[in-house]
């Protein structure tokens, strides 16, 4: 099961196009789009009525904010979930569990300017995990006269907006360059200054996982894409051991 999210900050807004069909074509016409957010330390779930086509739910830029999370479910699945008290995010169905991954188009826009998008999703297996993220700062950013931002989305199963630390780390000098606060169940947006766009500098989190996405803007043109988790680069069976060794260096720097 996958979740979907939006972004809103500064002069940037976003919209989501969430399909009601799997990428192999199977469709669930009885699936509605639900919006979930935190109210009074509880999950608040609402049926999201939006402009839609036969095949897509459209989430407009007003609702595509940093708090709202979206998912597909049937009325019955929501009733069952309600009986369980909406205590935390759980698997309601397997409809969005596909290979290749079930994705929505997340497009970011600049008023009277450009647009950029990627096929996005937040997989269920990530919401149960506490863990770390490593992502190089310079691989998707642009130095030349541009503004660069790290967008870091976390979704966690419990209805909490807990603060946790993010770090920009120089792996070569083994120093923390910048420490900043992030929030769970939120789309966090951090400006990256140009002097940090060097090959040795990485973004690292210790307590919570998430999806790091990079946004660049120049002359109203935008570029928006996520980095891969390190284990995507290794296809052999020992991939998680190799990645754990790689991350160990970062843990040692922040401890």
């Amino acid at each position, binding site marked *: 099961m996958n979740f979907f999210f939006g972004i809103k900050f500064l002069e940037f807004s976003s919209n989501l*196009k969430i*399909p009601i*069909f*799997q*990428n*192999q*074509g199977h469709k669930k016409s009885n699936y509605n789009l639900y919006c979930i957010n935190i109210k009074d330390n509880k999950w608040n779930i609402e049926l999201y009525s939006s402009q839609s*086509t036969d*095949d*897509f739910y*459209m989430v407009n830029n007003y609702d595509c904010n940093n708090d709202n999370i979206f998912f597909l479910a049937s009325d019955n699945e929501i009733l069952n979930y309600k009986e369980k008290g909406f205590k935390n995010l759980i698997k309601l169905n397997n409809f969005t569990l596909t*290979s*290749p991954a*079930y*994705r*929505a*188009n997340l*497009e970011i826009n600049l008023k009277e*300017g*450009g*647009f*950029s*998008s*990627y*096929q996005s999703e937040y997989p269920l297996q990530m919401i149960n995990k506490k863990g770390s993220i490593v992502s*190089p700062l*310079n*691989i*998707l950013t*642009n130095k030349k006269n*541009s503004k660069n931002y790290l967008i870091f989305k976390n979704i966690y199963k419990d209805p909490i907006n807990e603060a946790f630390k993010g770090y920009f780390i120089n*792996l070569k000098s083994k120093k923390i360059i910048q420490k900043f606060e992030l929030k769970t169940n939120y789309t966090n947006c951090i400006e990256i200054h140009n002097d940090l766009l*060097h*090959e*040795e500098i*990485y973004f690292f989190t210790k307590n919570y996982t998430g999806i790091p996405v*990079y946004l*660049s*803007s*120049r*002359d*109203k*043109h*935008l*570029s*928006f*894409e996520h*980095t*891969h988790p*390190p284990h*995507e*680069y*290794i*296809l*052999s069976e*020992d991939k998680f051991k*190799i*990645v754990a*060794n*790689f991350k160990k260096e970062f843990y040692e720097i922040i401890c």
Partner: protein
Amino acid sequence: MKLFAKKIFNSKLLLFLRNNLNIKKNKFDLFNIKKNISVSDSFCWRTDKDFETIFRFSDILKNFYKIDKSKIIIIFYDKQGKFLKEILLDNLKQSENEIKIDKSFFNNLEDYGTFHVYHISNIDIKEKLMISNRCYVGYSKKKALPSFMHGNTYSSYAYINNHNIKYSNIVKNKILTNSIYKIQNYFDGYDRTELFFSNPTDQKIKFYLNGRFYELYKNESFIIETKTEKIFTIKSNCLFLRPVIFNYKNNFMDVFHA
């Protein structure tokens, strides 16, 4: 016993049968590769219509295995799948390596095609490595900010130590042209859309895009432009055929993998 069963289950013959009978299909076959290998995606390059392509990659062997002095081979093909050029890059940086592919890179060729990227090393590697650099490719039109995306589909591999490049059909094909991939995006509000298709296998791919028939030979690529269609369904004999999308609106452009 468990390993033996896994070997049988993933044997080339059984994989062929599974994929063609739609029983526990596997789009990628990495199980039957025995040695240290570097797998490449099929990346697309463009120098047509004022495009420049920016290619960025990290040194995976250095990052994860502490192997120094590795190199990168990049092999370029034109849109007919013919070999164009090969470059060898050394002195790699750990996380930021970049090359710009513009028309001067190809002696003023204004066209498009694909390229493959392999990590190689002269150091004798004892453990069995299998790496894949998904990399990042940016597309810039008229020198504007490049729009970046990551690698889209596995294509081929090279042995890390002896540099022998293999096209072994990591992405699997089937006999019937009935594998469906419906792009999960709604193409409304754009001036036009281009779909960049490339063949990641060494066999002919047959496919239908919204009912229109096309064929792609080994390493071949082509761009299909459309202004009116809002939904795209691809039906093919390839189990993983997804295009790179270029969307245009006013003077702006967006690139992403479908």
